[in-house]
């Protein structure tokens, strides 16, 4: 397995597109957060909750881009045909799938952790230097939300990986990864709430549940807790990966 992990790490880091996406995934939330801290840090009302909300809110983009990296890590293998030498070098396909998943999720999780740490430390320092009072003790949900960003990124990466395993096509996998959470779940949730008469049913849409991991505001909507919604989203994502792995293992490469 160590050999496979090394092999998959070489693959991941030797594709330029992955670096481009990773740079955007890191730069976007940091840029927005640090600029906000700089320009709003001297506003009278700017506080810990605002800084945490901006940081965790913008890091959803990081999670999405990490999902794209994960999806492309497997779909590009099918697209360029490198899956064949890969499986010829390691006929135990499930081991390859696990190794690739572990590498890409570890890398994206590390990325999200770095964004959180840098964003918070630099953001609080900048806002503090501009006169704002930033103290994590003021907002008990801030740290869980920031940990939630890291978990969400890992799960979004797994979701992208699962879509990639199932579809074996970069455009289709990435489209699903973007359209499902941003559009489809809203429509399906609205439809279900009309049909069932339950206005709160949308919180059980998988990606909507996942997003609750990063909320700084108290929920107060009668929906599941952060841990429950995260666990629910995680279960859906693992089911996707399991389905994709089964399909790849059975089908011709």
């Amino acid at each position, binding site marked *: 397995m160590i050999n496979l992990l090394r*092999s998959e790490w070489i693959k991941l880091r030797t594709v330029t597109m992955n670096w481009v996406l990773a740079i955007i995934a890191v730069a976007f939330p940091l840029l927005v957060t640090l600029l906000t801290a700089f320009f709003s840090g001297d506003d009278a009302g700017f506080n810990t909750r605002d800084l945490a909300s901006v940081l965790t809110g913008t890091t959803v983009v990081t999670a999405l881009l990490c999902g794209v990296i994960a999806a492309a890590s497997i779909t590009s293998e099918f697209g360029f045909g490198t899956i064949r*030498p890969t499986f*010829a070098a390691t006929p135990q396909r499930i081991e390859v799938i696990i190794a690739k998943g572990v590498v890409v999720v570890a890398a994206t999780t590390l990325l999200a952790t770095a964004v959180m740490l840098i964003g918070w430390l630099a953001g609080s320092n900048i806002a503090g230097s501009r006169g704002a009072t930033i103290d994590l003790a003021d907002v008990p949900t801030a740290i869980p939300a920031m940990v939630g960003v890291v978990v969400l990124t890992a799960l979004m990466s797994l979701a992208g990986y699962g879509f990639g395993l199932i579809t074996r096509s970069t455009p289709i996998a990435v489209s699903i990864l973007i359209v499902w959470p941003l559009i489809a779940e809203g429509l399906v949730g609205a439809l279900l709430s009309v049909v069932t008469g339950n206005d709160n049913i949308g919180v059980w849409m998988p990606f909507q549940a996942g997003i609750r991991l990063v909320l700084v505001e108290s929920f107060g909507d009668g929906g599941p807790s952060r841990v429950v919604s995260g666990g629910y989203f995680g279960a859906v994502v693992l089911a996707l990966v399991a389905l994709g792995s089964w399909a790849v293992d059975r089908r011709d*490469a």
Partner: protein
Amino acid sequence: MISVGDLTKRFGSKLAVDHLGFEVRPGVVTGFLGPNGSGKSTTMRCMLGLDRPEAGVALFDGTPYHDLKRPLHEVGALLDAGYVHPGRSARNHLRWLAASNGIARSRVDEVLEMVGLTSVAGSRLRSYSLGMRQRLGLAGVLLGDPHTIILDEPANGLDPEGIRWIRDVLTHLARQGRTVLVSSHQLSEMALMAEDLVVIGQGRLIEQSTVDSFVDRYADHWVRVQSPTAETLVGSLTAAGALVTNVAANTLDIRGLDCVAVGEMAARQQLVLHELSAQTGSLEDAFLKATAAAQEYISTGLAAQ
């Protein structure tokens, strides 16, 4: 030694490989021939576990491919030189391949040197020609120093020097005692390189034999005579039941009699012969004859017009 038994693969309603069985012995290059669509590539993919066959098994020295722990040390395969990420360099392509089987990084530079790509090892593969990719593919095959080598159309895209190079490499590897199975459409190359043949058509085995016995069995045989008085011989040859074709001035091709019979006939008539030789058709002729009934795609247009 490769042993393929009862291999069967179906794509929907099409039977691509039909209970195919053959053996490939070590120490010689074995050509794997068949018309387009005959199932050669599918067979190779099934042998390597890339396509899932409905039935049958391929054994490498008695072991199914799936059970090989570090396959690159046992079997080197090149199915398509295009199976590379265009954004990666050749060196990085080989590094991930080597890492997957625990092969040292230094071996990557060794095989790059062997195939003559050291100077462009850092270039992205999108800038590689097909010939360069074939060389890279062969480098990947050699990474684990395997005793079994499987190549699908390795000479595609190579220039004459490259074709000669790959022929020399493969015959050299076979002489070292390795098992080498090569598919190719370049029958003249195969005639120079291969000692054994596996010929398939429509997924079924047509013939497994040595090249010589295959040509002997399927190719045309005739006697060529050159004589300043060749016309004098035609009557007696025809009377003896031979089929005589006048191919050039004073040159006859005679089918139905052997050299001895033709020579004795000429001697009885006291004719001067400038040539009396047994002729045999090429591997290409033999292949076309052997696979005539198994051609998947038959052209009826341009050549006839």
